[in-house]
């Protein structure tokens, strides 16, 4: 997040010989244009490039309908990615988010299912969120208190949550769901779908939490060096617990939205979303070694993948080729970012995972 442009030739030792320019007001905390082209917000130029290419290549890309589609499609992934980002910032990984999406979806769906006697929608949603946060919290306890490797902990939870989802539903789809429930995702405000609004809300809120709160600083500190953070008085365990719990909570939120959008509690939904969420974070500039990445980056990463999929269908690309093309384009996107940001010689193998 260095602002190369505005810093004068980094000068001599503090006060004495050269006067340093007075510390500027804390503007570095405010998002400035130059930030957008920084690796910290990785992917924005790539995103714009893809969007530009698509609007040239198809008539339908820049239509309201399509942008609305895009928002709906991406929102679920983006919300999960923002939660995943938290865990990644602590140098962890959360493989259970996909299963939590499924679990929360069917919990909410089951709760509102029996239209008569079913739980009120709000209560059902809260129940699903609690379940998701609890799953995340268990991950957190195993990682932070029992010091188990995050990969294994969340892999285990991935199996457990999926199994629980299947047990709960007997492997069947829960439906029909009442209109009040499907309205959550189905509605729109000012012509923009609720899903899109919620995605923006979650991203902005998380960006604010990470940049402007003490907790946010602690998250980065833990990810940078947990031992240093502990010895600096950072409450490492609570921070880890909160990161995993929030990841679970946001996955559950995404699960509820998905169930609402589909009008179904589908027990297999969310399968494979964990990799997509991690990919979104990394495309957006996060490092799997922790302490690097932003909420906006996660959103951008999700949008990049979303755009590629959307563009593929709009252009009618053969699905086999599309799969190859998306792979290649992800490589190009991150590769381009890397070359641009790679002025400072990074080490092979030390490259941010």
């Amino acid at each position, binding site marked *: 997040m260095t602002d190369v442009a505005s810093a004068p030739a980094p000068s001599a030792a*503090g*006060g004495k010989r050269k006067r340093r320019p007075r*510390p500027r007001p804390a503007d570095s905390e405010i998002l400035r244009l130059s930030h957008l082209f920084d690796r910290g917000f990785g992917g924005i130029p790539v995103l714009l490039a893809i969007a530009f290419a698509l609007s040239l290549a198809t008539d339908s890309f820049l239509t309201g309908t399509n942008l609305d589609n895009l928002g709906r499609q991406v929102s679920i992934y983006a919300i999960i990615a923002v939660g995943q980002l938290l865990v990644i910032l602590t140098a962890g990984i959360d493989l259970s988010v996909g299963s939590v999406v499924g679990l929360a979806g069917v919990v909410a769906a089951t709760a509102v299912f029996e239209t008569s006697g079913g739980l009120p929608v709000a209560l059902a949603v809260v129940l699903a969120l609690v379940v998701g946060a609890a799953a995340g919290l268990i991950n957190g306890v195993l990682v932070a208190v029992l010091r188990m490797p995050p990969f294994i902990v969340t892999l285990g939870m991935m199996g457990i949550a999926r199994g629980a989802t299947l047990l709960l539903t007997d492997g069947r789809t829960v439906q029909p769901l009442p209109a009040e429930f499907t309205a959550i995702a189905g509605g729109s405000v000012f012509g923009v779908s609720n899903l899109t609004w919620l995605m923006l809300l979650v991203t902005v809120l998380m960006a604010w939490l990470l940049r402007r709160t003490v907790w946010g600083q602690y998250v980065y500190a833990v990810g940078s060096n947990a031992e240093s953070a502990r*010895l600096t008085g*950072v409450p490492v365990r609570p921070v880890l617990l909160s990161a995993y719990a929030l990841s679970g909570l946001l996955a559950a939120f995404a699960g509820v939205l998905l169930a609402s959008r589909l009008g179904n509690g589908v027990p297999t939904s969310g399968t494979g979303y964990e990799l997509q969420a991690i990919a979104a974070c990394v495309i957006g500039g996060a490092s799997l070694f922790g302490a*690097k990445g932003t909420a906006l980056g996660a959103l951008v990463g999700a949008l990049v993948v979303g755009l590629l999929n959307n563009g593929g269908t709009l252009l009618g690309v053969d699905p086999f080729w599309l799969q190859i093309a998306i792979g290649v384009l992800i490589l190009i996107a991150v590769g381009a970012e890397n070359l641009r940001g790679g002025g400072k010689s990074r080490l092979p193998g030390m490259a941010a995972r």
Partner: protein
Amino acid sequence: MADTAVISLRGVRKTYRAVTALDGVDLEVLPGEVHCLAGENGAGKSTLIKILTGAETRDAGEYLVSGEPMRPVLTPAVARDAGVGVVYQELSLLPELTVSANLCMGRFPSRAGFRDLRRQREMATAMLSRVGLAELDPETRVAELPTATRQLVEIARVLGQNAKLVIFDEPTTALSEQEAAALLDRIRALRDEGVAVLYVSHRMEEMFAIGDRVTVLRDGRLVATEPMAGHTEDTLVQAMVGRTIESLYPGERAGTGQVRLELRGVRPVGFDEPVDLSVRSGEILGLAGLLGSGRSELLRAAFGADPLLAGQVLVDGRPADTSSPRAAARSGIGLLTEDRKESGLMLGLSIEKNVAMASIGAVSSFGVLRRGKVREHVAAAADGLRVKFGDWTDPVSSLSGGNQQKTLVARWRATGAKVLLLDEPTKGVDVGAKADIYRVIAELAAAGLAVVVVSSYLPELLGLCDRIAVVRQRRIAGFADPAEATEEDVLHLASPVTAQEAS
């Protein structure tokens, strides 16, 4: 051509983005000389060394080894094969690997790619014995070794390379007087064998003890290369800093007040006997001792970084919560740890955040950072420490070693703690900056804090402290009064050989 320089640099330049680390530097090191490289923190010494070893690519300038020009883009392996060996400032051993693998890394004894384990072990043992570690099992994993031992292993690795030029970048920061003296003897022996030595240290008397010539860098530019004999401490400091330092150690301070910190029957893990110790408000207590005597363990336990088996830590007569560092910090205790990289800095984060992290609650309300406050708070904490940096938002990893240390001092200064525990606070810090840090410590004490300083550098303890406690084999072996005691007195008390006298 008898006196062909082992290495010579001409007009070398190196910039990191906006920072010019080296600008038109010339250097010649002759066989059979110990050539010192002096300069403030951030003057470019480590950068120069990295260029010599091929770890960094120079932007401009010539580099010759034994008269042979080196390619502009150099790899460490090429430089090493040309006869340049180095002990880096920051430890570069691989913690997960064994000592012997580290010692032989890059040149394993092998037959057709298959390791010759017996020879590897022999080579390792031979190298270790040159630094007095003959007893160390070469199959120990480096991660299990204490810092000082790691430093010695690192030195052993370079000595074992039979290099034409051996570079030491602050090799004694982690060593005690005894080990440091032994190392200097080794270096003299190397010189007598005709090896060229490039030596970097912030300890003046070391340079005067072994240096033949000295090159001074300031802000990346060459000041001069002169015979060591032509310098006094004062002229050398003057050359490095560009100003005179009237006195390294702060003068008299106002007297001490009430007891602020009290260790009552404190027993850290590994201690057989409980420790009792008290430090008054305004007092600076030094903790002297040999490597591994348990000073760091004591500080860590008092700060809640490691568990306490028994006893209590009191701050202002009230029991402090030492269940975790966070709790201890809330009770008014701060600890500057000795290993910056592993347990001090958050390397990827900005300088600003590194300074602010311990006291971030002070610049926030209801958990939300207050706009503008952070920068002010951080600037105030770093005031007078002369931290050399590009921008507050640069990653702390871009700072030179000494400047990293200063940011940690600033971190704890910012907390407003009542008790500060400082473990090797001037590790890798230049003379000028040492004076700055000493002054800040004295100011903090004068403001009523109780300060405990652990240092392996006795002149520093004698110059700075009001009282010195000597730790020997995890016991307080006795106290020394800095006004009267000599280095020999303290060493005597610290050494196990004389233990029987104590009883």
